[in-house]
């Protein structure tokens, strides 16, 4: 999930090349509706934080109401501020991590692999 079409296309292509099945969205609301109608299909979420209408944290909060075990990683092009905000929003959560943009596609696949398997 990233509001930049170039990014969703790059991330989904990379993850598909790495053997994942990927649904990519540029609209957070559409992503939420899709997740609601079939969350069991998804093992892992890759979410951009800064998006119009709804930010990555808000989207994740909504998605956890549907499936509170779902793992996620957040993509951020910002500095440290967001990790603090995350700490406040999800004090006890261990199911998440952060990935800083820009990232090489191989590194992204490696990181996601590691997170899915832990």
């Amino acid at each position: 999930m990233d509001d930049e079409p170039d990014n969703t296309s790059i991330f989904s292509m990379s993850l598909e090349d790495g053997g994942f099945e990927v649904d990519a969205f540029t609209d957070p609301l559409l992503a939420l509706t899709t997740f609601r109608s079939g969350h069991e299909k998804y093992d892992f979420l890759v979410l951009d934080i800064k998006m119009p209408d709804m930010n990555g944290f808000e989207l994740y909060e909504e998605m956890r109401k549907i499936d509170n075990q779902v793992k996620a990683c957040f993509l951020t092009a910002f500095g440290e501020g967001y990790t603090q905000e995350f700490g406040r929003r999800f004090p006890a959560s261990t199911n998440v991590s952060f990935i800083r943009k820009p990232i090489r596609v191989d590194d992204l696949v490696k990181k996601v692999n590691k997170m899915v398997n832990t």
Partner: protein
Amino acid sequence: MSAEPDKSFTSVTQVLYGVENAVKLFSRVVHGADNVIDICDDDIISHTATSFKIIAERVLQTGAKFRYITEIKKDNIKYCKELMKVSQVRHLDGIRTNFVVTDTEYTSSAIMQQVHAHPEIVYSNVRSIVEQQQYLFENLWNKAIPAERRISEIEEGIELEKTHVIQDPHTIQRLFLDLVRSATHEVLLILPTINAFLREHRIGVIRLLMRAAREHAVNVRILTPTGDVIDHILKNEAISPQEGEGRKEFDIRSINRSHEETSVSTVTIMVVDKKESLVFEKTDDTKENFIDAVGMATHSNSKPTVLSYISIFESLWKQVDLYEQLKTHDKMQKEFINIASHEMKTPTQAIIGYADLIHKHPEKREDMMQSISRNAVRLQRLTNDILDVTRIDSQTLNLHKEQFNIDDLLENIIQDYLGHIEKENQNIKLFYNFKQNNDTLPIDADRDRIAQVISNLLSNAIKFTAKKNGVISISAERKEKEVIVNIRDTGEGINPEIIPRLFTKFATRSFSGTGLGLYISKNIIEAHGGKMWADNNPHGEGATFTFTLPLSNRRAIMISREDGGY
């Protein structure tokens, strides 16, 4: 006893009696002086008639140096002025002694005090006694102030300059309140702690100050640490029918913790009407009661003292202001860096991503190359804009001004855009309307920068009009000493929420824009002495962007550029 001191001794110290003797002795001592006549006098009025004549004669004869110390008051000014013709005169508050000391002799008497009909007179030519008296005079002379200054103070109605120490807490509180009540123009107040503010509030000082500001237009400025409690008090106090009126006269600035160290942390300082200062220590800041917390106070109307406190106050006042500005600037800078870095990382991610993927997906090579190129252009545009913003913010935007006709420049740019619209097959109509009556519009400006502004406005207009197959009309007209350029479109219009911050950095962010264009454009126009604004069109769709620029004072250019470039 003889009126004449016994001359058979080389050194003698004697006591004589009576007015007559005193006058004779005075005259003799003065006449014996060759170099120096120093006099201390506590009653110049009853003394002058006799003594002036004697002294003046001697001064004329010998050219002796003559110095006179007395207490100058309103009623003796004219005598002092007389005396000043032959003597150096100085003033000393409350002086109570009469003596004459010369190079070799000393005499002291109570003759000046009229009540004593038979005064005692001391005379001495003993060297050690004369030297002692010379030493005493020298000390008094150094403590005294020049007569000219004292006289002008009296004549200008300035009260005696005094600084005194007050130990009694009740007197301090009374004086504090009296001073606040006496203010007619200005009160400056520095409070060291929140508790000090609360104590001062309890004894009614804050209320009095607010009233002075509101009802008598006294300019009240307070420097104090602030907090919720103080905000609450101020809010409550301000609830009155005339609330708004006194506002600008009553100003509080916050000394916060970060510069408390450098500020006055243990004393309350108040300056009233630039004339009086009251400074008091707090001995125990935990006490709620003013009387229990206050220590020693100094009250002064001495100009140098009061001016020093004013200067301390003004420095702190300014410092608080600068500190706030710095904080805001710092915050804005951080925000800018944050957003700018985000904006730069987005196209960078696309370039890196596609560059990685292009080998694995040769079938998508063309698309990916195009995406890389598009993102590289976006990155380049962003870099240029960020550089421009940096130049604007650091005030290093250099303008290379030349004289040219803005109508020519507009026409050239519009022609380029018309070509572009045709090429892209966009359904946009572009009208322009200037060059009426062959009137040219010469300006002194940086051609490239003005072109940048016009291109930015036209690109925006096209971007927001393209979807709606709209119309863009451009006009430029002379109005007094300015040219007004309007770019009006029938596009989406400006989101009302964005209007207040339309010209700020990163007000809008879209894929094709950097969110910096309007900020840069407005600053370029303002750097040329012009103005820029925008409105949604009142009747109909779209928005109008307007800017003005001063027309050139010099003779208009009648021949437009022929190369067509800009």
